[in-house]
């Protein structure tokens, strides 16, 4: 078996007396969607923050593409090809849709040093950005101000910015959050095709989407992973049924 693209070993984070992340071992393999599910307050956000480098773990190790990145900052991890989307959209609201996507393209290029040429006149940047918008279905809205996008469209733009980075792995925090049924469907179909390009670590509440997409699932409860496995394995897992349904083991 090939090495995982992204892996954590014994990742631990405490806030005072609360252990928000407790010895988490997790891996993301090429070509898969690995979903992390768990009840609210299970520590999913803490986990994502550590993986992406905005929070440093108290113990444990994170490897990305075979390198130990535990001590590397968020920006360096992004440059190495780890793309994150946010649960609450983090976009430049006064800028156009295209400008936001271009930001991703700038990140892929490795810097924003040009000061005198128009960013949008740069054909490389523009084509990368437009291609990303096209793939999420926002190409027609490229010149619209981001603040005028609907909630679901902002989620799509989040993904487009990540796409423009041409990443080696995605970490997506609830990409379906707040989307209607139809939008959720389309996003599911889109992510389904995306896994071949780069594997996705998906944190999501929408269980229909999760069970439709995930090759493997990990269940996080009180900072601990209580089970990892395929859909069927997770459905049958006693600990999971207990945590979710309160059934006796």
């Amino acid at each position, binding site marked *: 078996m090939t090495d995982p693209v992204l892996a954590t070993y014994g990742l631990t984070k405490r806030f005072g007396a609360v252990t928000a992340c407790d010895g988490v071992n997790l891996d993301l393999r090429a070509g898969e969607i690995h979903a992390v599910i768990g009840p609210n307050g299970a520590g999913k956000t803490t986990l994502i923050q550590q993986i*992406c480098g*905005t929070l440093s773990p108290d113990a444990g190790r994170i490897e990305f593409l075979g390198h130990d990145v535990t001590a590397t900052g*968020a*920006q*360096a991890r*992004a*440059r190495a090809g780890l*793309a*994150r989307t*946010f649960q609450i959209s*983090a*976009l*430049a*609201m*006064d*800028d*156009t849709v*295209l*400008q*936001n996507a*271009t*930001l*991703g393209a*700038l*990140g*892929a290029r*490795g*810097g*924003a*040093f*040009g*000061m*005198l*040429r*128009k*960013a*949008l006149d*740069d054909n490389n*940047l523009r084509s990368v950005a437009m291609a990303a918008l096209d793939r999420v279905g926002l190409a027609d809205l490229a*010149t619209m*101000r981001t603040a005028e996008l609907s909630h679901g469209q902002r989620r799509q733009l989040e993904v487009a*910015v990540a796409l423009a*980075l041409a990443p080696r792995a995605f970490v997506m925090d609830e990409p379906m959050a707040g989307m209607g049924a139809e939008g959720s469907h389309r996003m599911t179909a889109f992510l389904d095709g995306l896994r071949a390009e780069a594997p996705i670590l998906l944190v999501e509440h929408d269980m229909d989407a999760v069970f439709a997409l995930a090759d493997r699932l990990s269940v996080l409860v009180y900072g601990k992973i209580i089970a990892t496995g395929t859909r069927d394995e997770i459905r049958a897992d006693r600990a999971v049924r207990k945590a979710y349904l309160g059934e006796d083991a």
Partner: protein
Amino acid sequence: MSREGLINAALLAGLVAIPLWAWAGDEPFTITLATRVAILALAGVGLNIALGLGGLVSLGHAAFFGIGGYAMGILASHAQAYDPIMESPILIEGTKLMPVIWIIAIVAAALAAVVIGALSLRTSGVYFIMITLAFGQMFYFFSISWPAYGGEDGLSIYLRNDFPGLNTLDPIQFFAICMVLLLLALWFNARLAQSPFGLALGAARQAPRRVETVGLSPFRLRLVAFVISGAITGLAGALFADLNRFVSPAMFSWQTSGEIIVLIILGGVGRLCGPVAGAALFITLEHFLGELSEFWHIYLGLLLLAVVLFARGGIIGLLAGRAATHD
């Protein structure tokens, strides 16, 4: 051309036309007022790059304005006294040549901005405001207590510095110099805003987390913006000192920082020509209200309060409506 574009064109045309008309009518004082507008606007353009594009509320830009002023004062005073600034290890002489003075003013202000920026940008929000204000004050007290260049009394230059091929003592010619520099700075600002750097800087203002997750450093973007901003304000300081043929610690004072910010706000934050409109209004108010009342700052204060509380977009905002996206 957008409505804001038309307003900008009219504004700049007016700023050129009025001194030309005054020149024809032999009213040098009006030309001097227009020159002040151009120079203050240039200082404002500098600050606007940090404030408007980068969202960095610097209350210490007087530091750069003053450094530009003293760069001019020190170089010119040594030159007029035929007294080298330094003899060993290498000979450094003063100069009366404007382009050389400008370059030194820009470099000195930029260096100061690197240091102040690197320290202040470790923080944000209110801390950033207080720290920039404090560093500005540091230069103020240093200039007062450093006796070599006039201390509290400042430094006078007998003759305005030279520009090859021009008579800088002729008000209209000096105005032309300042106006050209202002136009260059505005051109640069406009290009910068649409450049990859400007795009990333603007995003760092609106969504810093996003900029980090595409692998760019908001800190570095802001620092570069702060340095460019300080350098332009430093150039304006050198011109301002040349206009008055005098530098003093007042250029470093917190009021100067406040006034540069105020003229941006009066004009409209983040608007390309906001500083021009603001500087024009500021000088007009100073001139006319100053004639009406010794206490014209009260009216300025009331006006500013009204703009902040009720007219957020400043003059250009009132005339042009909501800000267009930079596209």
